[in-house]
């Protein structure tokens, strides 16, 4: 009989640290129940979900400074995770708000109970994923968010393209997670453990064959890779992004990507980080595999393919999908340097990326509400028909391009800083050339809005002040953080330390 008392104590203690997640579970249930109970109020699920998320935020905030390894090493709570959780939480809140204003969703179903419920569920999955320090836990969390997102992507199920997106997503996702679990099994066979900390200990005290480690590592990477849409695991992205409701596309492009990056970096650092040798500028990775190089190659492929793919697109969602692939490439660049600078660059980038990408999607959604089109060719004259939205979209797109004085520039700045600091000049050059290419398709949208004159004087598009306010709430920080970014950078640097046990 095993002695389980200390574990029980640990579990009980851990429950105290688990408040945000617990809140999410409760919210999940309440949303579902309220929605089922209340027949009249259409938006009760919306309000429940919002309240729940906000409470989650409060609990999350209380965890500031906490560094804890709980649930028998299954979960880590640290500032790194907290940062990502905030990103995920903010995106969830924003996406729920977006959904409230989405004609696409509101007209498809009379009630969106399951929708909000699933978003909460997905948030929960991502929260777990961010903190997971056990391969099984990682797998389970990925599956939680995946399954929610499969359904959300096809939520407008009568729409053909949504159901197609959902199908492709589920098949691609299942294959990826299948490959991943196979990889996990190989890693398990090599080290005899599923816990990242134990794997780390094993690797630092034993010599392991490189080839199976690489094989298993790559297979696991495919699980992360498909979450962050890195080449060659990106194929689902354009199709699903185009087919899914815009809100979900936005959500996938930010939150699920954030979770993917969070777990990927945690996985690398926790499992493979060895004792410091020489300068602390790069992680001393165990296992004799040049992960830096692998990720760098993936980064180059990802951004190049993403940008080249985006050049062709007229559909805004599809274009933004490719663009999000490209951004994953930039982020991978920062990951590839395999040091804490890279981590903090990713954090900084992600915060800004969240603002600008969600902003862009929201504008696209608002425009599509009125125009019933996501095609950028139909945007001509928009600069005059809806000045505020158009200006905001310009801000977001310029920020996505990475030009000052926008937040996107600061993000890029830090990514390149991290890359150059480690001396990978070639990678940085590829990166900047890519951002030049990206300019072309972003500016194409701007061109359509401003440079193409509308023949007939079409009416102005009128939006409610609330929606405009929400857009501005995203656009103004995008500009402001471009000029004064100290708080975010400080926060990111504070959070850039991944908990390594003890």
């Amino acid at each position, binding site marked *: 009989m095993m002695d389980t008392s200390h574990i029980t104590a640990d579990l009980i203690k851990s429950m105290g640290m688990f408040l945000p997640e617990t809140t999410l579970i409760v919210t999940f249930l309440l949303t579902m129940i309220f929605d089922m109970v209340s027949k009249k109020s259409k938006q009760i699920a919306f309000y429940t979900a919002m309240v729940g998320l906000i409470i989650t935020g409060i609990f999350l905030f209380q965890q500031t400074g906490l560094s804890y390894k709980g649930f028998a090493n299954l979960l880590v709570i640290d500032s790194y995770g907290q940062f990502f959780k905030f990103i995920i939480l903010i995106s969830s809140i924003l996406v729920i708000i977006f959904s409230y204003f989405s004609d696409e969703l509101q007209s498809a179903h009379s009630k969106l109970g399951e929708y909000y419920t699933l978003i909460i569920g997905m948030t929960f999955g991502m929260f777990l994923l961010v903190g997971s320090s056990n391969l099984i836990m990682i797998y389970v969390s990925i599956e939680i968010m995946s399954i929610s997102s499969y359904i959300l992507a096809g939520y407008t199920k009568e729409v053909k393209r949504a159901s197609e997106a959902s199908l492709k997503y589920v098949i691609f996702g299942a294959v990826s997670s299948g490959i991943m679990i196979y990889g996990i099994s190989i890693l398990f066979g090599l080290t005899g453990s599923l816990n990242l900390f134990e794997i780390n200990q094993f690797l630092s005290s034993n010599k392991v064959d490189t080839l199976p480690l690489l094989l298993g590592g790559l297979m696991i990477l495919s699980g992360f890779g498909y979450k962050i849409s890195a080449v060659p695991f990106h194929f689902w992205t354009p199709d699903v992004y185009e087919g899914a409701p815009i809100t979900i596309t936005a959500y996938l492009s930010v939150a699920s990507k954030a979770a993917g990056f969070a777990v990927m970096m945690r996985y690398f650092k926790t499992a493979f980080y060895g004792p410091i040798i020489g300068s602390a500028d790069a992680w001393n990775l165990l296992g004799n595999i040049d992960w830096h190089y692998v990720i760098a190659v993936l980064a180059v492929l990802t951004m190049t393919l993403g940008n080249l793919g985006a050049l062709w697109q007229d559909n805004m969602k599809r274009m933004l999908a490719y663009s999000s692939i490209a951004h994953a490439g930039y982020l991978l660049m920062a990951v590839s340097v395999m040091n804490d600078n890279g981590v903090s660059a990713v954090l900084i980038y992600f915060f800004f990326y969240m603002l600008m990408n969600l902003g862009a999607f929201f504008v696209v959604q608002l425009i599509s509400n009125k125009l019933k089109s996501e095609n950028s060719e139909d945007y001509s004259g928009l600069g005059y028909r809806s000045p505020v939205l158009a200006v905001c979209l310009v801000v977001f797109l310029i920020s996505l391009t990475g*030009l000052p004085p926008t937040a996107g520039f600061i993000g890029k700045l830090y990514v390149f800083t991290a890359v150059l600091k480690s001396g990978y000049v070639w990678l940085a050059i590829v990166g900047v050339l890519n951002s030049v290419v990206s300019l072309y398709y972003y500016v194409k949208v701007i061109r359509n809005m401003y440079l193409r004159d509308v023949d007939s004087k079409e009416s102005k598009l009128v939006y409610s002040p609330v929606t405009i306010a929400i857009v501005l709430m995203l656009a103004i920080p995008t500009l402001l953080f471009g000029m004064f970014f100290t708080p975010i950078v400080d926060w990111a640097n504070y959070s850039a330390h991944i908990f390594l046990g003890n």
Partner: protein
Amino acid sequence: MLGTINFPILTWITFLPILGILIVLLVPNGKDEKGQELSKNIIRWVSLGITFLQLVLAFVIYFNFNPALTGVNDIKTFQFVEKLSWINAHLPMVGDIKIEYFLGLDGLSVPMILLTAIICFIAVFPSFGINKAVKGYFAMYLLLDLGMMGVFCALDFFLFYLFWELMLLPMYFLIGIWGGPRKEYAAIKFFIYTLVGSVFMLLVMIGLYHSTGSFNIIEMMNGHNFRPDSIFGGLNTTIRYTAFMGLFIGFAIKVPAFPFHTWLPDAHVEAPTPISVILAGVLLKMGAYGMMRIAFPIFPDAFGYFQTLIAWIGMISIVYGAFCALGQHKVGKRDFKKLIAYSSVSHMGLVLLGMASMRPEGMVGAIFQMFNHGIITAMLFMIVGVIYDRAHTRGLDDFGGLAKKMPVYTGIMAIAFFAAIGLPGMSGFISEVLVFLGAFQSYPVLTVISGLSIILGAAYMLWALQKIFFGAIPEKWQGPWDPTHTKYKTDDVNMLEKVALIPLAIIILFLGVYPNPILNLMTGSVNQFIELMRPFVYIGGSLVGM
């Protein structure tokens, strides 16, 4: 005391346009036709007022500037310095990241500030003719103004880069919305070209930051501030050469030097008149200024290594630009603006050549040439604008005999043309002579070849002059431009155009005879600059250097 005034004048001169933008955006659109016209006029005059205030401030700076303080790499002798900690983030692994709000002037930048203020003010006049989306136009215009001023004031690389990029978008819109038939193409070409240049600059900037631990341009000029093990540490390393080339290409695109110049003819041809004026008058200068302020002094060793190459590029630009301007002759539609655009390539090549010489004459000549070219080309573009507004064509073959129809205009035009071909008595002459004198000492052969531009310049300019002004007036322009006399009361230049053109002409003539007011500003700084570079560069005296 000279050089110090208790007033953040650089902040004011840089950010005044913000005030303008706010006012412009807040001016309500009129309800009826009359109201709209009123609102447009308010916007125009507000912009004029703002740029005028800037001009006044620029002159305050000019008169309070002490040329004895040299600046360049000596932080103590910069003037009107404003230094505030701006971004101060702590990175445990990297150390503090410090970005400063650091503005200041020395002899290299004061002429540019003056030029920017003058050109921005003058270019408002031709902007009065813009009737489409006036509010947006002037908002963009002022934003552009802000960016340009900022570039010349900034002493922090980050700040510099910020202002540098800030100009891209307004420029894109200004060309793209208010431009000619191929505006889309020209605008995106401009955008992408300049972005290609600036992304390399970004990388170098980051590298420099790592090597010195600061974005302070002045500190970067001092080799001691580079950590020896850092990426740009040491001297004459491949990475330093690469970085220099990156910066150089970034700036050369803006200059524009051969072979990075092809955006210029397109951008000029499509841009509306005032934007061409600014483009040629100020924007091109930023490239050369960037080289002086950043690329050369921070990487003097690399400059020494590439010096001859830069001189070659300068020479090729000079001759090539001139030939292309002349070649307008036969290929495609002969466009007046394109001719001037190519002449800009040629004239800015002189700036490169002068800087490459690393002789005081050459450097002073180069800066003075920047100033002069700014004024002269601005004038030329406005002159093109005058007839374009009336005839709606810029084809050189469409005109003839205008001297008879527009005598005053022809007189002004002649001044600009003669100034452009470096006629003595005009400011362009002095700068050209200085550049050649300096360049000859370091690169005699290249300079002699460049001298061909003296002939070619005369050839294309006089050819254009002849085409437009001499000979017989073509059938369709026989009558008055505007038979109804609503828009143009007379055939000759109107008051507004005179107000814009004549001051420039006076500047050209005045500086041609008495260049000291501008030369004195920079002499000290240039000598300091050359002292800084001296250990690394080749400073002529024999035939060896080509």
